[in-house]
């Protein structure tokens, strides 16, 4: 079986893109990708298939054909993937599987979301849609419940949770495509408006529009596009529910443990081998918990992990050098693809002001909440230089 490699990436700056249509976003990310390919690409001839990640919050019509129209890439299979907040990563994973299977030689993975075209954005929408079904559980509440329990069970402090947001906002000021480029202090986070105790406004990612694309191909074709392909070493995907009575799910996300175990096993790498990670930080607490779920530290020790500066840009294991969702933003379908694009840049040494020195192994992680706000999905991809 061939390996799958990332050989190009394109992105439009994340932000409030009222003036951009959905097609504009897709076209922008796609054109940036086409221009990024080191040795050039003839897209209509080279690209065999398209995987398109979007939750279609803006209600533009659900079909892979949206990409065909926006890019002019007709007469090819184009598939839309929907998998909660892990939509972009799962679109990538599906393309990787097809390339590895030998059925597709060159795949375009593209994710896009217009979060601001609905009246209140995702959080407002989720609250209205799910209040009864989930008995009043909104997104900040769902994640905030882990924070309460983690603080109670492991003496994790509110300040340690806030520190995640401080770190990611600092990184975001150095990342050119981030939506919110400002620094904040632990006090700023603690004093920002309460959204859902114990989480405040600066613990929450902004509502952001955006699009991102990556090109995936096999061993044989990879050198045609670049001298520096990034190999997909492993991937995993899993699901779980808060309500199955597993006490670990009160503080953590067992689905992330399952997905990362699969990805570690497939890749032959473990948590200690990861040089740089882009992980899901829809809320500050989500990233803190993820340190434990991915095995970066022991259960209950995430607070100490960030206190020691390990996940900082200049730390031993930098997490979210791009500023994460907290600073970069979270246009759902684009989020996972953008994380892959950032790891691709990191492993090629192209990450500019947020470059992690000598990064050889990178990990990307997305989590999402499914029906009734009780189920969780988690996707992990491991890439190597």
């Amino acid at each position: 079986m061939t390996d799958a490699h990332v050989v190009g990436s394109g992105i439009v700056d994340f932000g409030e893109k009222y003036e951009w249509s959905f097609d504009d976003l897709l076209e922008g990310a796609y054109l940036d990708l086409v221009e990024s390919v080191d040795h050039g690409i003839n897209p209509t001839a080279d690209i065999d298939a398209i995987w398109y990640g979007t939750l279609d919050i803006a209600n533009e019509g659900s079909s892979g054909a949206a990409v065909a129209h926006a890019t002019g890439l007709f007469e090819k299979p184009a598939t839309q993937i929907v998998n909660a907040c892990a939509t972009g990563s799962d679109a990538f994973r599906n393309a990787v599987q097809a390339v590895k299977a030998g059925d597709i030689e060159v795949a375009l993975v593209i994710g896009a979301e217009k979060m601001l075209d609905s009246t209140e954005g995702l959080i407002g929408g989720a609250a209205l849609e799910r209040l009864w079904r989930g008995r009043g559980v909104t997104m900040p509440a769902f994640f905030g419940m882990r924070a309460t329990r983690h603080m109670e069970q492991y003496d994790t402090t509110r300040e340690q949770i806030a520190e995640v947001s401080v770190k990611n906002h600092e990184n975001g000021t150095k990342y050119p495509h981030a939506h919110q480029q400002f620094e904040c202090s632990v006090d700023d986070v603690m004093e920002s408006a309460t959204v859902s105790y114990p989480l405040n406004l600066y613990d929450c990612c902004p509502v952001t529009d955006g699009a991102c694309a990556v090109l995936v191909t096999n061993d044989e074709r990879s050198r045609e596009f670049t001298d520096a392909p990034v190999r997909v070493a492993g991937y995993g995907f899993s699901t779980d529910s808060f309500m199955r009575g597993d006490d670990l799910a009160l503080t953590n996300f067992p689905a992330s443990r399952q997905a990362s175990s699969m990805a570690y096993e497939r890749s032959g790498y473990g948590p200690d081998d990861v040089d740089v990670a882009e992980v899901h930080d829809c809320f500050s607490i989500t990233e803190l918990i993820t340190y434990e779920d991915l095995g970066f530290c022991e259960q209950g020790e995430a607070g100490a992990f960030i206190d020691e500066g390990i996940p900082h840009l200049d730390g031993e294991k930098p997490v979210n050098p791009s500023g994460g969702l907290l600073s970069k933003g979270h246009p759902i379908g684009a989020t996972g693809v953008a994380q892959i694009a950032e790891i691709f840049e990191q492993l090629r040494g192209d990450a500019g002001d947020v470059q992690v020195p000598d990064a050889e192994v990178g990990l990307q992680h997305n989590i999402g909440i499914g029906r009734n706000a009780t189920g969780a999905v988690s996707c992990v991809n491991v890439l190597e230089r």
Partner: protein
Amino acid sequence: MSGPRYNRTRRQDQRLVAFECQSCDYVSFPDEKRTCKRCGDAPATFEEVQLAERGEIQTFVVQEYLPDDIEVPQPLAIVDLPQADGSGESARVYGLLTETELEELSVGTEVVARFRELFDDGERPINSFKFSVPREVKR
């Protein structure tokens, strides 16, 4: 949206009737389905069990940002409700809290289920359980 769902679980919502998987002892509330959400038994055999009205908060949040027509602060907890006869596992449920001071909330707080109007769907009230700190342990 809430109407059909409300009717489907009305008996459970009003009487604290839950369903115990005979393979793994998982207790489902308020849903009664044909597959088990923990062990995956399909089809699963469920037996009705009666939940106690008193349970314990496992974790909680206090929601401050909600759509305009919902009163805030709105506390919300995960509550483990044991079976009335003291046997088997508890049911783990989401519960909105009512008549509770925010300072009274912590992991481990005992709460009691009270039948209340949750919301109205524009035409009629949606009733189910909310939880509150029992009066005798209130300070």
